[in-house]
């Protein structure tokens, strides 16, 4: 599903955020991405959904070469991904409902199904009563859950979640995690960056640990520094 081979990413001025990173996420897998602040977790995720391009190395996502993909194909790829951004990125001038609906509208989904799907997801993230609020009128945790709902509304092949529970209390976190578990068992691969080691410990999923732009631990591979993709 996702394959990184010797990927390096250098930002202008700040230098290398990723150095020779290689890993592979299989179809239907659930993996945590952990590591200290600034270790490159968000950078990996951004490379997957093509917000950033790698400086060197090869990235394949859902069979597409990230280096070759262009224009409309990028949009088509992103529609197969569900993305929860670390900073939410909700459209400020649309209600919570409309934000979620937007992810369906871009795919050209029939109008009559959109309403019911959006309603169901709002209920699932526990915000059925907040559908008509604008992002500014929502609490931090509520915004985060709307962002999660938007990522899921599409039935994505892969869910990319960047710190999706950073603003949620324990009970809400469990609820969201339940949701991610459900979606994972229906075949969606999940890659989730998180600081919540408690969460990581409680679940028996794969863990990839980053430090200073390199993978220092991968629970499915005891020798992560040896390249896996030769």
């Amino acid at each position, binding site marked *: 599903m996702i394959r990184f081979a010797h990927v390096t990413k250098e930002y202008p001025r700040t230098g290398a955020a990723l150095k020779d990173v290689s890993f592979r996420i299989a179809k239907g897998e659930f993996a945590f991405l952990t590591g200290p602040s600034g270790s490159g977790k968000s950078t990996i995720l951004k490379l997957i*959904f093509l*917000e950033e391009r790698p400086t060197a190395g090869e990235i394949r996502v859902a069979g597409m070469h990230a280096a070759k993909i262009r*224009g*409309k194909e*990028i*949009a*088509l790829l*992103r*529609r197969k991904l569900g*993305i929860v*951004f670390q900073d939410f*990125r*909700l*459209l*400020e*001038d649309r209600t919570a409902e409309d934000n979620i609906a*937007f*992810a369906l*509208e*871009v*795919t050209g989904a029939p109008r009559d199904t959109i309403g019911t799907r959006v309603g169901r997801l709002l209920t699932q993230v526990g915000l059925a009563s907040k559908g008509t609020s604008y992002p500014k009128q929502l609490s931090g945790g509520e915004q985060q859950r709307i962002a999660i709902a*938007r990522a899921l509304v*599409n039935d994505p092949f892969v869910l990319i979640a960047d710190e999706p529970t950073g603003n949620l209390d324990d009970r809400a976190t469990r609820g969201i995690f339940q949701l991610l578990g459900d979606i994972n068992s229906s075949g969606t691969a999940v890659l989730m960056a998180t600081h919540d080691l408690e969460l990581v410990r409680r679940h028996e999923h794969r863990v990839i640990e980053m430090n200073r732009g390199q993978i220092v631990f991968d629970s499915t591979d005891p020798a992560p520094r040896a390249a896996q993709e030769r």
Partner: protein
Amino acid sequence: MRLTLREAVMSFARAPLLSALSIMMIAFSLYSFGLFGLVALNFRQRFGAVEERIEIEAFVDDSTNVETLANAVSEIARFPEVARALPVTKDEALERARRDMGEFKDVFDASFLPASIKVQVREGFRDPATVQRVADRIAAYAFVDDVRYGAEFVERLHDIRNVATGTGIVLGIAFAAVAIIIIAATIRITVLARAREISIMRLVGATNGFVRRPFLLEGLATGVLGGGLALLLLWLSFALIGRYIPLVFLERPMAIGGIAFGGMIGLLGSALSVWRHLRRI
């Protein structure tokens, strides 16, 4: 399409100030341009009336017989540069002199005013060189004593026409250029104001086309509204000034063309700005 329309209407509603500014900008630019065009149009009209007075007068020898004169007149009338040629008899000349000179009317008598041929020059041949040539050709008739055509008047008119045309073209281009720059900048700001929104849309899977379409529709609408507003302002100015000075207004095709031009500017401005923006990110 429904979606595009809804998005476009929503973006008007969401940023009314920006939309209003764009409309005003286009309206103001087109209005300045239109006002200028209106002045030019009216100037041309008036000027045309003055230019029709370019006239060559050939004074005829007293001994010329009527038949020769008539032949010459019809020959001259067939010159390609000539619109009309008319004989003026001694009596007519006297009458005219009396009418023109009011207080001195009693001092004239028919004896000293010569008969003449009046020749009007066709439009397009009213430049000094051509008029001179025609006058020379007429002077070549044996029975013509003297030819007058107000060389200075013709030259002066020609100068003014040249200057007016030149100024008009220069100012017109300047106005149009400034209008386009301003409109492009305004639309660019609308696009930048929505940069975050656009990037989010793309990240959740919107194609460039999807992002672009509402902008284009909005640009078109903005342009058409701006053009309409400009036309309205222009008409009001026209009505106000026209109360004192008789003026002609733009003809219908021109007015409609102006609105269409507004729409085109709006559409193009949007297309360019969005295109540039989408290409960069």
